[in-house]
């Protein structure tokens, strides 16, 4: 008896339909085979399915069972085929009908319960696109799938419950999406800008970076507050809009980092991989391409603390995604594209010991060591970072008592409003272009949207001579000045905007 159950496979962010064909033959020696390029996880599915069916107090047939996963030439991976295989076998045994236009997806535990399975959101999206009515997923993954409206998402707890539903003895009700207050990110404003004492310029630079989507490099002595500033950044970024949120959630779903019962991501992601991260971990990849940290940080913040300590090969691999906003991972078997449009926040010490230019502690590094340390980051990579800021050490005790310093403390909420305002201006400006922020401007956009008055051009040229700015830095300064002008609601770039932008030029942080 041949039964066909529909399921789907995720390849990167694409989903393709997979037919799970189950044949329970009356002739032949008892056996249980899976064909159709199953990998190890899918092969092992046999044991899980067999035991789960037995645990559900149903006798497993001593017959020749053949499972085919079609199309047969696409490699199948993951544990999500457990449910469709089990359903196929049960349908063949019990003769109960499988609801039409339904997709099955989920991993079985030996007890017959269903476990949280990654990628449920993409399945639901696929179902909607292809016109399937019902989706059966594990209960823990159901909320994630229910984000997609127009498809019935059935949260399945265990096999017995599913059988009862088929027999119409006890119906499972489709789940209605419930937004979880915070998915993945612990708290919306975990670090408030007003908690960062001093660092007025660095905070201003963060505001500009947030407003224009610029990448930013923070250089300072240990303990100056670089990490705190970076962590406060998501709090001043505008919240994800619906499309962005779905994009980010899709990547997280595929990567399997959405917790059981998880929902749409609302807060911008803040990813801070350790500097021992491998290239594959950061960029994505593997024999079966997985999204890396840069994709998990999509539409959010990628914070690379101790920037100079990352292996050079890893950092250089960042260049292409920084430019394009996505990364293509090519393997002989498949080619996968993961979006990776993130804001890079890098932080570094000025020298190996960390105390160069420190007011109290003496630096013990030689000039050569410092040069070597700073050379670890290549020019092309630094060129992709628009804002370079010094984060000098602060005397926390003194600042806490300083009246004037406390006047400058602004809560993140207030800064966020200004950022949103500047983003709105950019939205209107780039309505006809494919970009959203000033940071994404290419040369043609700069020409079109950033005409410089003679006065401003003069200042910039003067600065280029005085500070020896390269042509690329020149363009960066214009972009940053554009964002500063947006923050000030100025239609043109004025002298004061350009002058401020010059503050954030890249400086070699040691003389010698």
């Amino acid at each position, binding site marked *: 008896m041949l039964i066909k159950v529909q399921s789907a496979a995720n390849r990167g962010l694409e989903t393709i339909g997979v037919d799970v064909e189950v044949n329970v033959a009356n002739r032949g020696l008892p056996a249980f085979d899976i064909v159709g390029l199953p990998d190890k996880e899918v092969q092992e599915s046999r044991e899980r399915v067999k035991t789960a069916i037995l645990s559900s107090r149903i006798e497993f047939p001593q017959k020749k069972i053949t499972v085919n996963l079609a199309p047969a030439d696409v490699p199948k991976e993951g544990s999500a085929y457990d449910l469709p295989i089990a359903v196929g076998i049960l349908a063949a045994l019990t003769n109960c009908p499988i609801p039409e236009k339904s997709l099955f997806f989920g991993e079985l535990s030996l007890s017959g319960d269903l476990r949280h399975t990654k990628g449920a959101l993409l399945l639901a999206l696929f179902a909607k696109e292809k016109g399937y009515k019902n989706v059966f997923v594990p209960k823990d993954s159901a909320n994630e799938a229910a984000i997609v409206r127009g498809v019935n998402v059935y949260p399945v707890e265990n096999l017995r419950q599913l059988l009862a539903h088929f027999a119409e003895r006890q119906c499972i009700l489709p789940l209605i999406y419930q937004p979880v207050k915070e998915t993945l990110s612990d708290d919306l404003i975990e670090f408030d800008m007003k908690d960062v004492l*001093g*660092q*007025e*310029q*660095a*905070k*201003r630079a963060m505001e500009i970076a947030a407003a224009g989507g610029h990448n930013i490099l923070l250089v300072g002595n240990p303990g100056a507050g670089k990490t705190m500033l970076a962590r406060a950044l998501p709090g001043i970024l505008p919240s994800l809009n619906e499309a962005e949120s779905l994009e980010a959630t899709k990547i997280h779903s595929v990567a399997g980092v959405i917790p059981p019962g998880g929902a749409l991501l609302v807060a911008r992601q803040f990813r801070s991989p350790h500097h021992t991260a491998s290239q594959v971990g950061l960029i994505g990849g593997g024999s079966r391409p997985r999204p890396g940290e840069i994709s998990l940080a999509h539409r959010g913040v990628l914070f690379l603390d101790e920037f100079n300590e990352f292996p050079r090969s890893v950092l250089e691999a960042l260049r292409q995604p920084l430019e394009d906003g996505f990364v293509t991972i090519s393997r002989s078997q498949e080619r996968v594209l993961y979006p990776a449009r993130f804001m890079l926040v890098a932080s570094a010490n000025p020298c190996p010991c960390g105390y*160069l*230019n420190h007011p*109290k*502690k*003496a*630096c*013990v590094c*030689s*000039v*050569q060591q410092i*040069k070597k340390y700073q050379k670890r980051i290549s020019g092309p990579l630094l060129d992709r970072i628009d804002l370079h800021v*010094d984060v*000098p050490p*602060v005397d926390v005790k003194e600042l806490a008592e*300083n009246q*004037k*310093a406390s*006047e*400058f403390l602004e809560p993140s909420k207030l800064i966020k409003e200004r950022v949103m305002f500047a983003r709105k201006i950019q939205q209107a400006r780039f309505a006809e272009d494919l970009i959203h922020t000033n940071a994404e401007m290419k040369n043609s956009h700069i020409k079109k949207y950033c005409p410089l008055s003679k006065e401003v051009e003069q*200042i910039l040229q*003067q*600065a280029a001579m*005085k500070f020896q700015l390269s042509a690329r830095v020149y363009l960066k300064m214009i972009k940053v000045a554009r964002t*500063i002008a947006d923050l000030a609601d100025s239609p043109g770039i004025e*002298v*004061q*905007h350009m*002058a*401020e932008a*010059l*503050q954030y030029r890249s*400086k070699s*942080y*040691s*003389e*010698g």
Partner: protein
Amino acid sequence: MEKIINIQDKNYPKLLKEIGKDAPKQLYYKGNWSDIFSAQGGPASGGKNCLAVVGSRHMTTYGKQVVEKIVSEVAAAGITIVSGFMYGVDAEAHKTALQVGGRTIAVMPCGIDLIHPEYQQDLYAEILDNKGLIISEYEGSTQPVLWTYPRRNRIVAGLSKAALIIEAGEKSGSLITAEFAKKYKRKVFVVPGPITSENSKGIMQLIKEGAEAVSSAQDILKYYNTLGFRSSFALDPKGPRDSGIPESSLEIKIINQLQREALGIDMISRNLGLPAAKMGTILSMMQLKGQIKQEGNKYYVN
């Protein structure tokens, strides 16, 4: 071609000969010896007007300012600056001397054919191009080792009428040079620094032991003048610099603050009660006008 000068040679520096058994038997050199040392007195008075300028390898911005201020004037007055070619104060002293058209001698801790530290080869070439000398007591490509550095210092001190120490930590090699200078009965000048700085500890020690603190190039030039020497080609080191004149009252306020103490932008904006964004604009403009300059993360008056 090996260039060697023997202790018996009449062109052997007299001051160096005076240090007795410490004097090297022979010196290898690069450059033109008679440009600085010639028995007849020569353009640079037979090497009688050398000043050793040494200091910390970890030069601070303050140290750099001091070198620029004092050494430029001293070198412009025709005094030959002798130092050890090490990075930090040494290299800065060589550079400053060359900038004002002065003469300089670099004493190497390694064989005469080596450049150490290697990455300063530009400076090396510049010294030779400008009638300077490179001296070493070691032949060929002898590698520098731990004990050649203090050995080298005795030549630096021995060649010079006086030694000027700028920035020295507690265990700085510059203190060894100062010790040699004292031993050879040479004058020791020091530039005081803030007592909170690690780089002042050695200096303070020298002051306590009786070194003379200097606050301007005049203090040193006076000492050399009493010896009856005055160079004809004095350059005004302040000459070519353009110092913009502060315009607004705000600029004057900022300059007043910076004259007292070098500050970072956060501190200035806090003191004047202006947001960092506005202050950034003003400071950039002042920098472009040449009123102030930025080094490390602090601003200085030009």
